[in-house]
C-alpha cells in the first residue's frame, strides 16, 4: 500500500456559501476494496460521494481514479456509477430498459446488449422481472435493479449512497450480506456511504468515520471498535461507558489518570496517548455484573442495579454508581447467573484493567 491508491482523494474541501460540508479530506482507497464512509447525517459523507460522482465540484483539492485526475471529467464520462438512496429508477421504463439504459452510449449490437442486460438481471436474481415497471417492484427489488443498472456499466468504482436505509430491518440484514457477496464476486471497488454503524462494520474492509466534514479515523471495522481514535468515534461506534479522568503528574514517566469512581489508575500502554483532556472508556460487554467486590487483579465500581433490558441473546443492565452522572451499561449474556439479580440490588460492575481505553476528549 503506497500513498497512491486506486482512488486518491487529496485535500478535498467543499463549501456551500459559509458552510463547510467537506473539510480537507484525504483518503486512499485500494482496488477491490469495500470502503465505507460512516457518519451522522450532515457530516459531509454524501457530499464527498457526490464529488466523486461528479455531481459537485470540490472547492479545493483533487480526486484521482486509477491515476487519472477527475478535475475536468464530467459526471457522464467518469468511470464511476452510483446507486442512489431513492434508487432513482426511471418510472417510465421497464426493468430491462432501466438496466440497459447506460449501454446505449456503448454502441453495442442488440444481441450483445440483450445478453448483458440478461446477465445483469441474473446477477441480482431478477431474471423474471425484466418486463415489469419500477412501481410493480418491492423496495428490495428496486434496490437490486439499481445495482444491476450501475454494475452493467462495469465501473471502476461503484458509489452507494445509503442504498438500503429505506428497507425494513430483516431485508436490510439480508441485503448487507448480498451486497458483500456481490462485491466479492464482481471485484469492483465499492464506496459505501451510511449512517448505520452496524451496516458499515458488517460489510466493509475499511471504514472512514466522518464528523463535521472531516475524516476522524480510517481503519478496519475491528480496529475501529477496539481502538477508537477519540471519544466521539468511541461513542458513535457501538455502546461505550465513559468515565471522566484527569492526568496526574508523576515522576517516573508513567502517565496516570485520576479517574472518577476508580481512583488513580495506570492504563496499559498502547491504548494510551497522553492528552490534556482525556476520558476513560470501557465497552459494556467488557464489564461483568457481580454481587461480590472485584478480585485483586480486577477493577470495579459499586452501585445499584437500576434496570435490566432483555434483548433476547443479551441483557443490558444499567448500574447506577453514586459518583457518576450517567449509569454504567453492562452487557451480559442472557440466562447467565448474574442475569437473575433483582433490580434494585447492590451490585458491582467488574472489569479487567486491560479493557480500559484512554481516549482523547475533544
Amino acid at each position, binding site marked *: 500500500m503506497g500513498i497512491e491508491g486506486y482512488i486518491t482523494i487529496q485535500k478535498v474541501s467543499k463549501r456551500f456559501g459559509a458552510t463547510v460540508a467537506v473539510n480537507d479530506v484525504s483518503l486512499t482507497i485500494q482496488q477491490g476494496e469495500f470502503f465505507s464512509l460512516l457518519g451522522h447525517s450532515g457530516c459531509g459523507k454524501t457530499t464527498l460521494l457526490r464529488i466523486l460522482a461528479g455531481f459537485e465540484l470540490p472547492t479545493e483539492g483533487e480526486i484521482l481514479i486509477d491515476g487519472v485526475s477527475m478535475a475536468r471529467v464530467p*459526471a457522464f464520462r467518469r468511470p464511476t456509477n*452510483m446507486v442512489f438512496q431513492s434508487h432513482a429508477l*426511471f418510472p417510465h421504463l421497464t426493468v430491462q430498459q432501466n438496466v440497459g439504459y447506460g449501454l446505449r452510449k456503448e454502441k453495442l449490437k442488440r444481441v450483445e446488449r440483450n445478453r448483458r442486460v440478461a446477465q445483469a438481471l441474473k446477477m441480482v436474481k431478477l431474471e423474471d422481472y425484466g418486463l415489469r415497471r419500477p412501481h410493480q417492484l418491492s423496495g428490495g427489488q428496486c434496490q437490486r435493479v439499481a445495482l444491476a443498472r450501475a454494475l452493467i456499466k462495469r465501473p471502476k468504482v461503484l458509489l452507494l449512497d445509503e442504498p438500503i436505509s429505506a428497507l425494513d430491518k430483516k431485508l436490510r440484514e439480508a441485503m448487507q450480506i448480498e451486497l458483500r457477496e456481490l462485491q466479492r464476486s464482481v471485484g469492483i471497488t465499492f464506496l459505501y456511504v451510511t449512517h448505520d454503524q452496524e451496516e458499515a462494520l458488517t460489510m466493509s474492509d475499511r471504514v472512514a468515520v466522518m464528523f463535521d466534514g472531516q475524516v476522524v479515523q480510517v481503519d478496519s471495522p475491528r480496529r475501529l471498535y477496539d481502538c477508537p481514535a477519540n471519544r466521539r468515534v468511541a461513542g458513535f461506534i457501538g455502546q461505550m461507558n465513559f468515565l471522566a479522568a484527569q492526568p496526574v503528574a508523576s515522576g517516573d514517566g508513567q502517565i496516570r489518570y485520576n479517574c472518577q469512581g476508580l481512583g488513580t489508575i495506570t492504563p496499559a500502554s498502547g491504548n494510551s496517548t497522553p492528552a490534556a483532556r482525556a476520558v476513560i472508556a470501557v465497552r459494556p460487554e467488557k464489564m461483568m455484573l457481580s454481587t461480590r467486590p472485584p478480585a485483586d487483579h480486577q477493577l470495579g465500581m459499586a452501585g445499584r442495579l437500576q434496570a435490566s433490558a432483555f434483548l433476547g441473546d443479551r441483557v443490558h443492565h444499567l448500574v447506577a454508581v453514586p459518583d457518576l452522572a450517567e449509569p454504567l451499561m453492562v452487557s451480559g449474556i442472557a440466562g447467565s447467573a448474574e442475569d437473575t439479580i433483582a433490580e434494585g440490588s447492590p451490585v458491582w460492575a467488574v472489569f479487567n484493567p486491560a479493557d480500559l481505553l484512554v481516549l482523547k476528549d475533544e
Partner: protein
Amino acid sequence: MRLLPIYTIIGTIFLYAPIVLLLVFSFNDSIYVAFPLKGFTWTWYRQLFSNPDIFVSFGNSLRVALVSALTATTLATLAAKAVTRYQFAGRAASVSLLMLPMVIPEIVLGTSLLMLLMNWGLSLSLVTVTIGHIVVCTPFALGVMISRFAGFDKSLEEASFDLGESGLGTFFRVTLPLVWPGIVSSLMLCFLISFDDFVISFFLIGTEKTLPLHIWSQMRFAKKLPEVLALGSCIFVSSLIVLTIAERLRRKGALTQEK
C-alpha cells in the same frame, strides 16, 4: 344535513341551466329565444355549416390557439426546468415576474400590448393576436410545468448523467417523458385560454376575425342568434370530448408514474 342534497341540486341546476338552454334552443324552430318551444329543427345547424365565415374564423382561432399553446408551453417548459433545477441569483424574483401577467387584468394587458405593438409599427393581424395570447398563456403554462418538474426526483436526471448520458440526451430520454403529462395539460389549457379569449383579441385584431369575435359581431343581428346557439352547442360538445380524452390520458399517465 337533509337540506344538503337539495342544495346540491339547486347548485347544479344553477351551473348547468344556461348550457342546457343553449342546447335546447339551438334545436328550437323559432328565431326568438323564448318559451314555449316551437318544435324541433336542424335549420340552425344547416345554416351554420353553410356559412363560410364561421369556418374561416374557426380556422383562424385554431391556428392562433395552436401556435400560442405550442409557444407558451415550450417557453414554460424551459423556464420551469431552469427554476426548478438550478440555483441562481434572482430565481424567486424571476418566477414571480413570469407569473405576474396571470393577475394583470386583460383589459390593461390588452391596452398596453396594443400601444407597444403600434409603437413597433406592427400592423394588427392574427400575428399580433397570437403574440398577445402567448403573453397571457405563458404564466398558466409555467404554473403547470413547475408543479410537474417539482414533482419528480432530481436524482433521476443525475442517474442518467451517471449512466453516461449527456445533458441533451438526459433531457430527451428522462426529463421529457416524465414531464410529458404536464406538457399535454399545459397545451390543452393554453389552447382553451387562447381559443376562448375575447378581450386581448379584441384589442389586437386586424381584419381577420377569431371565432369569439365573429360570434360577438353576429350578436348584433337578432336573426343570427339561433345560429350562434348552434355554434355554441357544437363548441361545448367538442370541448367535452377533448376534455374526456385528455383526462383519460392524464389518468393513464398518473398510473404509470406512481411511486
